[in-house]
């Protein structure tokens, strides 16, 4: 069951987690918006250590405004970067 739906504002959880993670550092703590619910997949953080990765985690395509990611960004303010982020790395966010 997906916790978030397309259009929902979310925030990537800040901070480090020990072990292997697929969430890029530059997105930690950043606000974004769910674009697509991609479905559940085995958790890569467990697969990385030879575990089954089950139960699957819901993966989302999340859009981030470029000017929230890069301090010296000079492009259009509505331009977005899209990244796939697992549900356990997301929390509800405010409007962006």
């Amino acid at each position, binding site marked *: 069951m997906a916790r978030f739906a397309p259009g929902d504002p979310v925030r990537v959880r800040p901070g480090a987690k020990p*072990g*292997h993670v697929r969430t*890029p*550092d*530059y997105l930690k703590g950043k606000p974004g918006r769910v674009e697509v619910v991609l479905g559940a997949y085995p958790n*890569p953080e467990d*697969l*990385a*250590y*030879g575990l089954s*990765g089950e139960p699957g985690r819901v993966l989302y395509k999340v859009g981030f405004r470029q000017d929230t990611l890069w301090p010296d960004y000079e492009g259009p303010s509505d331009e977005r970067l899209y990244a796939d982020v697992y549900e356990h790395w997301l929390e509800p966010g405010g409007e962006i």
Partner: protein
Amino acid sequence: MGGEPAGPIDKKGHEPEDWERIADAVNAALGKRGFQTTDEHRRAIESLPNYRDLSYYERWASATEKLLVEKGILTKVEIDGRAAEIQRRWEDA
């Protein structure tokens, strides 16, 4: 790279060397036979202490070696012994 400055990007294309093709093929074969997964390989690559000193496929080969040893499929002694043997054959040829 890793959120840190990495200098200019080299955009020139290049032909893979033979050993790089072999590194790729060995990796694919090990995955197909269930000896390792892409996620394990990525984790092994990112945990290489000399990551920044290695080229792309040097990372691949080092990570594959690390996983095979970690899983007890080969030992470091076996791998180093075989590498030395191949080196000798190469130099004699």
